[in-house]
């Protein structure tokens, strides 16, 4: 197998913030590769470098054997990108958006039409073909974007958080389409996400945090190597919660009113129970999962972030805050 993507000691900084620090990994051809990390971990920056929107400060990146810094135009021809934020023109129809993409990538007319029809069928949007994109739901828009990224017959597909902000059903469907696409054609897929449950089905997972690669391996190997039993504890009183948190400061994480305790094994669980058993309302034991891998590698849960300036502007635009739109 040949490497579809080679990332070698890539670094990128924005002013004083280090977004990526000596990141290296390879992605094999036909692989479903996931970049997992919390918001602000550097996933999007890495993806932007891979799809030639950003320059790395140092290091080399090869996509299908093409250096993205010295030959960006050639590299762009082989990759399809679905960005985190919608990038469709919502005043054009679904067909016009797809056709625009085909024209810009130089797909001949007959082939273009044929591919648009086939891909619309794949993402089940054939009857929405002539509708303006602004009338589509966000799940449908994401599906149009996936179809669009494949019109120029790209062999590598980048998806930046393709399921963020979608309901469970739409998320499920997007993964179905991706699975079907992988069966039908030779496609390498690189997907970033911060939903841990989604990466279970991937071939390999790269866990990234604060601009560093913490681990790259298959989900099973990662679970075997770094996974551990977790105790999900709901104490009766806040005082007990504080007590547990101070007793195991580096092993506990608070989430949704519960405490997640990293357990060393059954012995730890027994000792924990004999000490706090009477003061706990609920306790559940979770067997090694990718979430526990993430916790033990980063020492914390996947964190949330407040809406950035961009989201706020978008919300303002949606309210009709700007007449040019």
């Amino acid at each position, binding site marked *: 197998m040949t490497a579809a993507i080679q990332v070698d000691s890539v670094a990128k900084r924005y002013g004083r913030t280090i977004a990526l620090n000596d990141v290296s990994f390879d992605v094999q051809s036909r692989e479903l590769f996931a970049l997992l990390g919390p918001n602000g971990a550097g996933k999007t920056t890495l993806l932007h470098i891979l799809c030639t929107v950003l320059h790395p400060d140092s290091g080399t990146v090869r996509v299908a054997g093409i250096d993205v810094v010295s030959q960006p135009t050639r590299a762009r021809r082989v990759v399809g990108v679905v960005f985190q934020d919608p990038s469709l*023109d919502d005043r054009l129809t679904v067909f016009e958006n797809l056709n625009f993409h085909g024209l810009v990538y*130089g797909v001949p007319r007959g082939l273009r039409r044929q591919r648009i029809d086939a891909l619309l069928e794949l993402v089940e949007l054939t009857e929405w073909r002539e509708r303006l994109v602004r009338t589509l739901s966000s799940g449908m828009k994401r599906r149009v974007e996936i179809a669009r990224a494949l019109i120029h017959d790209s062999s590598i597909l980048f998806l930046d958080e393709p399921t963020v902000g979608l309901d469970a059903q739409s998320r499920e469907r997007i993964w179905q389409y991706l699975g079907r696409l992988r069966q039908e054609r*030779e496609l390498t897929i690189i997907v970033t996400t911060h939903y841990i449950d989604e990466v279970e089905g991937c071939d390999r997972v790269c866990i990234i945090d604060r601009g560093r690669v913490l681990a790259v391996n298959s989900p099973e190997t990662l679970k075997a190597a770094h996974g551990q039993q977790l105790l999900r504890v709901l104490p009766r009183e806040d005082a007990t919660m504080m007590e547990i948190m101070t007793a195991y400061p580096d092993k506990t994480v608070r989430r949704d009113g519960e405490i997640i305790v990293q357990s060393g094994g059954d012995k730890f669980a027994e000792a924990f129970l004999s000490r706090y058993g009477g003061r706990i309302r609920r306790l559940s034991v979770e067997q090694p999962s990718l979430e526990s891998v993430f916790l033990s590698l980063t020492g914390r849960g996947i964190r949330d972030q407040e809406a950035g300036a961009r989201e706020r502007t978008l919300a303002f635009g949606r309210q009709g805050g700007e007449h040019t739109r």
Partner: protein
Amino acid sequence: MNETAMVARDRTLPALRLQCAGLYAIWFREVKRAIRDRGQLIGGVSRPLLWVLIMGIGLNPYFRGEVYGEVRFVVPYTYLQFIFPAVIALNIMYTSVQSAVSVIWDRQFGFLREILVSPLPRATILLGKVLGGATVALFHGCLVLALAQFADLSLSLGDVARGLVLMALLAFGSHHSGSLLPAASAPSRASACSPMP
């Protein structure tokens, strides 16, 4: 689909035709968006109506070379004839700048990134954008030119042709300078999609 796609992996247009196809796509998108934007069209029609029909005809009688009731000099035009070219220029410039500023909105709403990751060179993207905006602006200029008879202007075909060339140049130029606005504005977000060569 699969098999044809595999066979046709390298079936893309040759370089020059690719440029033209991309240029056409970007130009056509601009024009199409402008046609669908009712607000821009209403603006394009109402500005000349306001200036030519209401202000122009209304102010026409006061535009004489007369000071305190005494005619000091003779103006060879009516006020309407005097401001008519300016109204054309106004309409063109306003529309050009408006569509140049739409680059900011393309960036804010993500579409610019879709264009930037395409294999088109940046110069072609800019040219397509400018040509598209200039076409729309030229059309808005023609809306004013159609009011020429209300301004008592008798234009020969040659005059119209000469006027159109000048209008096209103005539209192209003002769109270009308008395009500098997005480049100069909001450098903080520029990192997200700063164009690479």
